[in-house]
Each structure stands twice: as C-alpha cells, then as structure tokens.
C-alpha cells in the first residue's frame, strides 16, 4: 500500500512470530494463546495559542492466555526479557489452574482465513514532532490572526498486533491512526467553533481546512440567542451523526438480544433478525478493509472479522455471535463490527438546510451517555456551533441543548442523507474506531433542555 522507506513502527511479522513462538515453546498448558501489541504513540497538544505538551511513547505488550481443560487465565506484561516472559507464562498457568472452570470456553482456534488488510500508512508512521508542531501551529496562527484562542490535539499511533495459538494459528496486522481536532474560542468565551479529521493516512488530514472551519464556526456562532427546547427537525453534520452512531456499534450482539435485554429482543423470546426496523435508506455495514478506515481483520482470539451487512435497507440482517453463543444457537460465529460504515446519499449540507422550514443545525455533540437501553436512548449536549434554520436559511446562532434521543427512532426518522465520510467521532479526540457516516436530516429530534455552556 505504501512505499516504506523507513522501518514500520511496531514488531514486524517475523519479529512478532518469533516472540509468539518463544512463548508457546515454554508453555505447558493444554492450550495457550499469545497476543502481542506493539508500536508508538505520539501527540501534540495546544491551548491558549501555545503548544502545551507533546510526547512520544513506545511500548510492546504481551498477553499470555493459558488453558487447562476449561480453566482459563491470562497475564499481561511489557517486559520482554526471557525471564520475564517465562514468568508471565508460569503465572498465567498457575492462575488458570486455580481459576474455576468456564463452561463456555471453546478450544483455541487453529489456522484461519483472513481478509487481507494493510492499514499502515507511512505518511502517518513517519510523521515527526516538527511536522506535528507545524500542523498544530496553523490553528494557533488562525486564532491569533482573528484575536481568538485555539486549543487542539493531534494524536498519532503506528504499530502492529499479532495473535498466535498453540493450535498453530498466527495472524498479524499493521496499521496507523491519526486524528487532528481543533477548538477556537473568542477570548471573552462567548463563542466556540470546532473542526477535525480522522483517518489512517496523515495525507487525508486537512490541517488548513481544520483551522479555517474552526474559526468560521466560532465567528458564525457568536451572538447566540435563546430557543425553546422541544422536538425539532435537525440537520446533523457528519461528525454529530458519527458521535451518536458509534454507540450503535455495540448493539448488534445476538446474545443480549436472545436473552431479552436488548432493543433487538423479540417479545416472547428470540431476536428481531429480518424485521424492518429503520428507514429503508439506512444501510450499515462493517469492513476491516475499508480504505482509510482499516482495522485488524481478526479479533484478539484470532476469529476472522469480515465485511458484514448489519442493516440493509432498514432491515436487521445480521447479529454478532460469539463462538459459544453461535454453537448454542446452531449458527455460524460472527465477530462484532470493528468499524461502522453507514451508506449515505447525495444531498449536500446546503441543500439539507434549504429543505428545512424550521429546524436546528448541529455541529457536534458532547458527553453522550446511555439513558434507557430498552429503546437505545442516549442523553448528551450540542456543542461548538448550533443554529436555528428558518425557511431554508440559517436564521441565527442559538444556545446549546441537552438532547434525550432514541437512536433507533432516529434511524427510523431519517429524511435526507449526504455523502458518507470518515469522521473524528471520539469525544476525546483520539484516533479511535473508524466511523464513516453521512450528514443527516432527521425529524422529531428531542432537544430536552437549554444549556448555558459555550
């Protein structure tokens, strides 16, 4: 995928395999699994128009999982000398012998077939401290020139992960992640704007666009006035959609559905596979090979992660089954999604706004937390740019709101969709689980109360 002039960060396939074999060689348990995670992380942080901190860390973590019969235990260490590794193996084995049996344990996997994925971008892996500082300083300069105040974060990771089992499984993945986010505020604290990017490839991070968009939002949101809470038609920018939808990812698990504690549980027993639950334009997939949103194609246990269609045209098509639950239900095992990709449409954000008679444009959210798991409802707040739309135009900036909203209702209430993009959906600004979503126009979104926060 990339012309790698410099060595990749993290252990190479050979180094990872050798390390795994060294551990498996000394293992005495019935089954042993080794997970190796290695690489670097780097960051540059700004606030008050200065670089406040920057740093780099390298680490290698080894997890040894030992199994006797159905007794399982694991030990993690980042000490790689022979003595320490042997001690980790002996500790895991001793702990496993003491552990009560786990009746759901299934033997370690043997060799598997995986989707080929290379998620390592040299543009990210080779990024220097100076380059990060220069990119960060664009935000500072934009804020300075407008007599505003910038706070930003560039997060970089590059490395590899591997899993090996005593049943001869070995899997390896190498990848990078980068996120750049920026908040620009007026010095009187009366306005705030945000912009960000996330990807695997540093070349997709638009540092200048981020600086100008954060400043634009900050300018446009100034002078906000009150708007009464209530149910509104809303236009959600793609970041706002991504922040909500990343909470949907964990819902696609068959077991809680079958056990009666999920939105996907069927009254009277079983789950709702095959039912049309959402607007017919809603299609949600996951795919470890998605460009600039790559993930490892295997789980920590070595189970393959493949492209899966979870929701197709509003119908629940797939639920994830752990190996145990799949065996119990007599279906094939399916890993949970490792990324979240929602199909979009072709309506631009401007056209969405033009189509709204009276509604609210939302840039992004904050402090999203579960409220009622039975209806997948969440609470949280709007942030860094909230606007009233009237007769197809932005009428005025308005106060932030707390929302209380069922995500499943939201997916049933979609009106318009824009093109899907990868978004910086992690509230912390970390380069996290890839989320690719469109901007949406949605009806009946509950803005429950006003927030004075800016």
């Amino acid at each position: 995928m990339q012309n790698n002039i410099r060595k990749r960060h993290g252990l190479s396939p050979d180094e990872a395999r050798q390390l795994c074999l060294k551990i498996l060689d000394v293992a005495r348990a019935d089954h042993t699994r080794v997970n190796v995670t290695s690489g670097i992380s780097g960051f540059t942080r700004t606030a008050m128009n200065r670089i406040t901190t920057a740093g780099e860390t390298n680490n290698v973590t080894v997890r040894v999982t030992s199994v006797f019969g159905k007794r399982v235990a694991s030990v993690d260490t980042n000490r790689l000398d022979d003595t320490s590794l042997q001690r980790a193996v002996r500790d895991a084995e001793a702990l496993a012998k003491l552990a009560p049996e786990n009746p759901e344990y299934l033997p370690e996997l043997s060799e598997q077939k995986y989707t080929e994925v290379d998620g390592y971008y040299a543009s990210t892996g080779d990024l220097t401290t100076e380059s990060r500082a220069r990119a960060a300083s664009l935000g500072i300069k934009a804020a300075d020139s407008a007599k505003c105040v910038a706070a930003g974060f560039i997060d970089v990771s590059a490395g590899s992960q591997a899993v090996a089992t005593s049943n001869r499984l070995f899997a390896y993945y190498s990848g990078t992640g980068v996120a750049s986010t920026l908040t620009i505020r007026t010095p009187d604290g009366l306005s705030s704007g945000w912009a960000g990017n996330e990807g695997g490839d540093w070349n997709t991070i638009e540092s200048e666009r981020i600086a100008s968009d954060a400043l634009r939002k900050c300018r446009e949101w100034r002078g906000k006035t009150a708007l009464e809470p209530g149910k509104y038609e809303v236009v959600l920018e793609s970041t706002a959609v991504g922040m909500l939808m990343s909470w949907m990812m964990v819902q696609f698990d068959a077991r809680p559905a079958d056990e009666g504690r999920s939105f996907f549980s069927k009254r009277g027993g079983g789950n709702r596979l095959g039912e049309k639950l959402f607007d017919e334009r809603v299609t949600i997939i996951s795919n470890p090979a998605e460009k600039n949103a790559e993930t490892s194609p295997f789980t920590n246990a070595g189970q393959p992660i493949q492209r899966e269609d979870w929701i197709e045209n509003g119908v629940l098509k797939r639920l994830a089954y752990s190996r145990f639950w799949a065996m119990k239900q007599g279906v094939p095992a399916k890993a949970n999604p490792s990324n979240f990709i929602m199909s979009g449409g072709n309506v631009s954000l401007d056209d969405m706004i033009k189509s709204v008679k009276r509604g609210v444009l939302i840039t992004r959210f904050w402090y999203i937390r579960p409220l009622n798991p039975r209806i997948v409802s969440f609470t949280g707040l709007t942030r860094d740019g909230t606007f009233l739309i009237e007769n197809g135009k932005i009428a005025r900036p308005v106060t932030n709101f707390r929302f209380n909203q069922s995500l499943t209702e939201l997916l049933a209430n979609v009106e318009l969709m824009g093109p899907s993009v990868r978004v910086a959906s992690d509230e912390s600004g970390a380069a996290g689980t890839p989320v690719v979503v469109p901007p949406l126009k949605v009806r009946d979104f509950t803005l429950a109360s006003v927030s004075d926060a800016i």
Partner: protein
Amino acid sequence: MTTNLDRREFVKLAGAAGITAVFSVQQTNAPGPDAAEKDLVLTALDAARSAGASYADVRITRGNRESIAARERQITNVSKSETYGIGIRALVGGSWGFAATRELAKESVAATARQAVMIAASNDRVNPVKTPLAPVKKVADGRWITPHDIDPFTIPIEQKADLLFTTNEEALRVKGVRFVNSSINSIRESRLLGTTEGSVIQQTLLRIGPNVNVTAVSSDNSDFQTRNASLAPRSAGWEYVIGLDMKENVLRWAEEAAAKLTATPVQAGVWDLVLRPSHLWLTIHESIGHPTELDRAMGYEANFAGTSFLSPPEKVLNKFRYGPALMNVIGNRTEPGGCSTCGWDDEGVPAQSWPIIDKGIFVNYQTTREMASWISNLTKVRESLGTAYGQDWASIPFPRMPNVSLQPNLQDISEDEVVAATKHGIYIEGDGSYSIDQQRYNFQFGGQVFWEIKDGKRIRMLRDVAYQARTPDFWNSMTMIGGKSTYRLGAALNDGKGQPQQLNAVSHGCPIALFRNVNVINTA
C-alpha cells in the same frame, strides 16, 4: 501504618475560612526506592540536564492489576497485568517535551531523556513561551504507601471467585432475576519520582474496585431492569471488600432489580430530592470537581473536557455563590480511603487539603506548579496545591482532580431526619446515567433505586427517573445536609480527561442531602 489525619479533623478544618492547607506526613515505614530504579531515574535526570533541560522530572511506574469477573454461575475473566516503564518530562525555554519507554537499560533511558528534551526544544522553536513553576520544597527521600490491613494481591484467586459465585447465587434466588455480573479489580501502582530539583519519592498506591450488577427480565421479555450495587472503589486493602458484606447485601439489590420491573413510572415535573452519598458523589464530581479545575477554567481543556463556568478567576474567586452557607467543600488528597489520596503528587508537592467552597462561596481552584502563579495574586498562595498526576509511565503528568468532598453538617442530623423533612420528594440511591455540558452548567443524572417520599415517609418505588438542573441553581436549592454519621465516600477509577485521554481514580465524600424543586424527567 497510617499517618494521615482522620476525617474528624478535616471536618473541623472544613469550616475554617481562608487558605490554610493541611499536609500529609512522611511515612517512615513505607518501602523506599529500588536501588536500580533510583539509578535509572538519576541517569535520566542527568541526561535531560546535559541535553539542555532547565527542569525535568522522571517517573518509573510499575502498575499491577488483577481482575476477576463472573456472570451467574461461571467465571468470565481471570487476569493479571503488569506495565512497567519510565516517562521523562523536560522543560526547554518554556516548552514541555515528554518521552517514555518500556526499555529500562541505561542507554535507552538516557536516549529517551534526550528525546524528551528534543521534543521540548522543537516545540519551543516553533512556538516559544514562558512557563514559571511554583516553588516546591525538595524531598530527598519521600516514602508513602496506601494504609491497608490486607494486601489484596495476597488473597488467593479461588477465594475471590468463591465470593463472586456465592454473591451471584444469592441474587439468582430472587424471582425475575436472570443475570448477575460481579467482579473485583485489585490495583497496585509503584511510583518512583525524581526531579532535577533533588526530590526522590517512592510511593505505593493500592486500590480495590468491586462491582455487582443484577438484571431482572419480565416473563415475556418485554422489559428488563438492572440494579447496580454502586460499590465505591477505595484506596484500601482486602479488608474493605470484607466490610461490604456483598453476600448478605446482594439479596436486597436483587429484590430491588426485580421490583423495578413493576415500580410506578415517575411523573415528570418538579420534585424535592433526597440524595444519598452513593448517588450524590457523582453529582459533586461533575458539577464541583471538574469546574474548579484551574486548567479547565483557563482554556487548557477546551478541545475535549471543556472549560468552566467558573471563569475568569478574578470575577469568581471569593465572590461566586455556589450554594447556601451550609455548603463547605474541600479538595483533599489526604482523605482516608480516598482514591486520589497519596503522599505527594507527580511534581513532588505534598498531598494536602484546602477549602474550595467555604460557607457557599467559591474560594479556590485545584492547581499544579505550572498553574499556581496564574491566580496567586488572588489567592495569596504561591505554591501548588498538588494535583499533578500521570496515569502511568507512558503518560505525561497534568492537573487531575483530588478527592473533592462536601463536608457534613456539624450537627449530627440523621438520614431519617432528612427524609422526615421532605413533604413530597424522591429518594435516590446509587449512581446511574450521567451527563453534563462542557462548562458544567446543565446536567442530567439518573440513579439505581428511586423511592417516592410523601409527608416524610418513603411510600413506594418509582422507576425511569432522571433529574436535570443547572449547577448553581441546583446547589443553591440544597436546604438540609446530614451529619457525619451519614457521610460516605463514592468513587470512580476511570475519570477521563486530557489529550491523550488519561484515567484518574478519585473519591468524593458527602452526607445525605435534601434539594428543593428540581426538574425530574421520565426516561422511558
């Protein structure tokens, strides 16, 4: 083993106005530094100084964790982990650089120190700034260990599993209860700090986090309800788990989970609230702990955790009325059992306690060495209040919340008296859903168990309750607080802040308290 002041002494201090701080005391019987580790720390400090750092601090930390978890009648996790390495923070000009490595050979430690200096120098070239650090007294041989009776790592895993199984089995006896998850996390952090100013401090922090979560499901699968026990993590040994009586208490938690299925849906509207410490600690954390962080107030967290409504300092310090005169809140890294309790912070500043809200008035923030001078003209405090913390060797230290606690009433008012003073209200136990805006105004909290109070008596269970309020309105609606017999600690091991995000363990003590006319919503 402990040399901390006890809580009664803090209670007395809490009422005292002014800025007098109370410090923890050196423990002479705590373990000292490992000679090889100390040598590496000195190597790193030398290398940083030689490379041009005007100041550097170095942390070798070894974090150990043991986790055990069970669901119903089976074990789901038995694991141990260790993470060990060195982190070096260097100041060049006025810019910070940080580098960390797991490779603890002298050459790699020295190289990592030089890398930290190089990063600081790069930043200073691109963006030169000034960073004055508040004075701190050198501690040449500091030693501290969390006071405890029984090291949780000495308790065999079978004994822990047995406790979880017995607890789960008891819960499953209750009709309607189908699922129980229980777990115990034991944590030990060995932290060796060295600074170019000559401090060398070895601390061993112990924390323990038990959890029980019971789920009841209606017979037709149309509804399910959970009851989390809201067991507070604690800086303590295994004796804390023994004292929780999980096996005995789980029956009540399970019965409450089942009862929630048929409880009366709350009528949305304005209610009085009686909040137990198992619930109120989290409201304190979000609406007092975070907004009184000075770095937030000054914009350092604007891109993630947010800023604070308590800003600018000159407009709010000693002026802003947070709540009624009966409201006294202290920052306290010496609170016995507090998850943020220690001997010194990550800059070698002694653990201490100080008033944050005095008789309802906001009087001080939380500071570090870098931040103290920002407000010293207002507070007359030149020194740091000691809140620097990095979660592990790989993480740069920055301002983290100390234990922030609402002090009890000097009169020993009981829980019954608080309930009796409530004509029409909701009694809330346990922490539930929580969310607050980025300046800490608008919040919404759920809970675990809700009881309607009518004419001073708890009459029936309610469900689907959450309350929404604005921080100053909420605290000014507090009309009654319990005495010291109702004071308890709540806590979290996972308070997130910073970029890259770091987790902090922190406790909040409080008595039971009564709030008038709060907006309650129905979450169903």
